[in-house]
């Protein structure tokens, strides 16, 4: 393995920094859902563009790893392309778009449709690690609320949603309780993806670079989305299948097709969509190229 960038260490970060991050990761795995402060470094992309995820990935990636990077479920969104090419340049590891081939998946805003397997690690890019932040802006205060497991504020917020709209009006970054102890932000994935976190066989790591926090959900850990007995958690549902591959029960992007209100729904997960569509083409269904041209 060699690095293409002169003057930079393999994986960009220096070894001391990687060790510091690995220590934070070990602590995070030992206390599921707890936000571990870490001395977040600058990385060569702007804050808020996945610098936490990049640092976590840079600290755990090894020669044998196969990396997949997605943004909004897609491998070909510009930021996913940029981060993937960054790691290709600074580590020289193999990259892939196939969920089942990857050993590390760095993601922004989605969990792949293909169920994750034991041995895989998913690294989430996290903009705001503190689920209580918009209810209490002070770190000194939210830290105490976590210490006391005092999550009344969040339940009141959800209750107010129901009183106002008839539903819980949080559709992404939907708060979860991890291992019955810590309230955690799942990062801004749609609540559709929340159930995939529950007892996932994969290791789930979360990096918030700008906010300097790392947290984790070890494999097979309980991750419960908050709800009430009479208003249980309800993830999104879509009424129609993907217009390209025909999948149902997957998260869909709405693609505007004209200026008269026309739109179609297609898979957010491009890897899933391509493979499902490829399976379909034998039966003469529409191809990805025809639809996306």
């Amino acid at each position: 393995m060699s690095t293409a960038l002169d003057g930079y260490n393999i994986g960009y970060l220096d070894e001391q920094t990687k060790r510091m991050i690995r220590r934070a990761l070990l602590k995070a795995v030992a206390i599921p859902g707890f936000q571990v402060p870490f001395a977040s470094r600058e990385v060569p992309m702007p804050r808020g563009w996945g610098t936490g995820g990049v640092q976590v990935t840079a600290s755990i990636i090894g020669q044998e790893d196969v990396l997949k990077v997605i943004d909004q479920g897609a491998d070909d969104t510009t930021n996913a392309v940029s981060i993937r090419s960054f790691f290709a340049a600074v580590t020289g590891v193999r990259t892939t778009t196939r969920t089942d081939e990857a050993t590390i998946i760095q993601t922004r805003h989605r969990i792949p449709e293909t169920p994750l397997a034991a041995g895989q690690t998913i690294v989430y890019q996290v903009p705001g690690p503190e689920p209580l932040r918009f209810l209490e802006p002070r770190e000194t205060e939210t830290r105490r609320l976590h210490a006391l497991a005092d999550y009344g504020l969040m339940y009141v917020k959800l209750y107010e949603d129901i009183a106002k709209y008839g539903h819980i009006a949080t559709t992404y970054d939907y708060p979860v309780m991890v291992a019955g102890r810590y309230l955690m932000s799942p990062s801004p994935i749609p609540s559709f993806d929340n159930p995939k976190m529950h007892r996932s066989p994969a290791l789930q790591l979360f990096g918030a670079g700008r906010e300097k926090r790392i947290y984790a959900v070890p494999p097979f850990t309980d991750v419960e989305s908050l709800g009430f007995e009479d208003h249980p958690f309800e993830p999104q549902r879509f009424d129609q299948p993907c217009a390209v591959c025909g999948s149902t029960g997957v998260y869909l992007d709405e693609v505007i097709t004209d200026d008269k209100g026309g739109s179609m729904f297609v898979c957010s997960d491009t890897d899933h969509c391509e493979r499902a569509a490829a399976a379909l083409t034998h039966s003469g269904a529409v191809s990805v190229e025809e639809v996306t041209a």
Partner: protein
Amino acid sequence: MYVAVKGGERAIANAHALLAKRGRGDSRLPRIELAAVAGQLGVLVSRVMTEGSLYDPELTARAILQAQGDALEAITLVRSYRTTLPRFGYTLPVDTAGLPPQRRISATFKDLPGGQQLGATFDYTHRLFTHRGTSGTTPRTPRVEPEAHGAGPEMPEMPRVTDLLAASALIEPDHASGAGDPEPGDLTREPTIFPMSRAERLQALARADEGFLLGLAYSTQRGYGGTHPFAGEIRVGEVEVEFEAPELGFAVPLGRVELTECQMINQFTGSADTPAQFTRGYGLAFGRSERKAMSMSMVDRALRAGEFGERIVAPAQDEEFVISHSDNVQAAGFVEHLKLPHYVDFQAELGLVRRLHGEFRSRVEEKPESVLTDPTDLAGARA
């Protein structure tokens, strides 16, 4: 359209090529030399070094050119490089009282030991455009009074103003008596935990965005946490940096850095038990960064409100607010990340709003008279 939204590698490569072309400008004109940037845009270089937390005029000049003059982009470049450098220790405290100042002014004393020296400053210039073309000619050589110039034994002693006042116990001393220098923290190597020590806070302020600090400092002058500042002393000069390697046992000079230091003298405190004393705010920045150093010293003082038992009522006095939002690399990145696609989350919100609309419509159809709100309120009501 589907393809256009999902950018792809070719789009990125083309965008970068276009960026490089725009940055090159008119190809018939020569490229700007690094040395020209370091020499002729010295104030900009100072700012990028200060907020990039790295003293290296040449590398900074390279960053400014690569960033096509975007200061924040250049700061990000410098920081992303700096963070990969190993840290092997910290230097001895620099002796700013001993620095031969290129500039030294005090707004609190008309005359003081060592005298005042105006130096290279925009103050008292008329902000008029100089004749076109004259910027290229050799500037007039300043006349130097022999006694006010040069280092060495002839140079007059210039003790810091705050030391003069401290000598007569009218101003708070550098440290509480008996306390040595505390081990300095390093916020680039340790997680930020609130509340911070003053030393860590000063580090954060030193790399904080100049504009943000300027606005906050200004707000304290307009009643949002007033501290009645006087510019006790501002100095600009080169100072020697020394490092004491443990295996040597003595200090080794590493080089010289240019600094701007501001000692702000602020409103006094006192009580029945302690005599009244002026308080202080401190600012320090690389190069010629006077506005930054002054703003920093005012915000530093405002943030010491708790220490002096003052009521915390204004943004500039609120440590979490100031420190969490003062770093322009973080702020610019997060504001600009809104350019990244958010269609998964937007889709989730869209689905909910549609559902709420549908439910609203069916309520209206069932009982038209019971619904008083305008349906457009629903979309706008979500906080």
